[in-house]
C-alpha cells in the first residue's frame, strides 16, 4: 500500500470539478484511468466519534447536512465539511465506477478512492457512500438502473 500510495502522490490523477448530472457538481476524470488505480485520497480533519456526533447535530442545524463525515474506524472520523480536498465533491452512485478503502500508510489510516473499472475522460467519478440506514431518508439521484432510491 505504501508504494502504491506514494505513486498516488506522484501520479495524482487529473480531475476536474464540473456540473454533474447526478447532483449539482461532481468530480470528473481528465485522463483515462485504468481499473484498480488509486484515484484520490479523501482528506479532511481527523476527529473522535463523540466530536463528530456534536458536529453532525450542528451541521444539520446549519443545513449543511452530515455527508462530509467519513468513518475510518471506531476511533476516527474524517470531517471534510470545512477543510479537505476535491474528494469531498465525489457523488454517490448505486452503480459506481470507484470504491473507497481504508489503507494504513506508516501507521496513519487513510481513505483512498480506487477505480473499480476503466474510467474514460470526462466520465464522472462515483463511489457507494455506504451510509448507515437512517429513518430520515436522503433521496438518491444516481439514476442507475439498480438504484436503491436512498443514500441511507
Amino acid at each position, binding site marked *: 500500500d505504501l508504494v502504491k500510495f506514494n505513486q498516488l502522490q506522484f501520479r495524482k490523477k487529473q480531475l476536474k470539478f464540473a456540473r454533474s448530472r447526478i447532483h449539482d457538481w461532481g468530480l470528473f476524470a481528465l485522463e483515462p484511468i485504468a481499473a484498480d488505480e488509486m484515484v484520490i485520497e479523501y482528506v479532511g480533519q481527523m476527529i*473522535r*466519534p*463523540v*466530536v463528530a456526533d456534536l458536529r453532525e447535530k450542528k451541521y444539520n442545524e446549519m443545513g449543511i447536512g452530515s455527508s462530509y463525515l467519513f468513518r475510518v474506524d471506531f476511533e476516527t472520523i474524517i470531517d471534510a465539511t470545512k477543510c479537505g480536498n476535491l474528494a469531498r465533491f465525489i457523488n454517490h452512485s448505486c452503480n459506481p465506477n470507484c470504491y473507497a478503502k481504508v489503507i494504513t500508510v506508516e501507521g496513519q489510516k487513510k481513505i483512498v478512492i480506487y477505480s473499480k473499472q476503466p474510467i474514460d475522460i470526462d466520465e464522472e467519478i462515483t463511489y457507494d457512500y455506504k451510509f448507515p440506514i437512517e429513518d430520515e431518508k436522503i433521496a438518491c439521484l444516481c439514476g442507475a438502473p439498480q438504484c436503491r432510491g436512498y443514500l441511507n
Partner: protein
Amino acid sequence: SVLVAMHDRAPQLKVCEDRLTVTGERGYCMARATHGAHYGSWFYEIKITDMPDGSHVRLGWSQELGNLQGPCGYDKFSYAWRSRKGTRFHESIGKHFTDGGYGQGDVIGMLIVLPKDD
C-alpha cells in the same frame, strides 16, 4: 480500597500502576472508580499532582451510564467541577460555582448526599 476502574473508563486514558493516577492526552474523556455510592453521604479527595500548561480536568460524580468518551458533566448522568475558572457542569451547561479554578497542588474534596430510597 477505591481505585480507578480498569474497564469502566475511556480506553485512551493512561492509568498508572497504582491505579490511583489517570492521565489523558487528547480531548476530554472520563474514568470512573471501582466503587459507587448508592445512598447516604459519601466523600472522596483527589490531589492534583501535575497540570502541564493548557491541561485541565473536570472532577465529580457520574452514574454508570455517563458517556466515557466525553468529559464528566457532559450528559445528564454526571456532574463536574472544572479546574479552569471553577465552573460546574451538568449536561454540558457551565454555571458559575467558585471564583477561580483549582490546579497543581490542590486537594479537591467531592461530597455527594443521596437520599436513602425506601
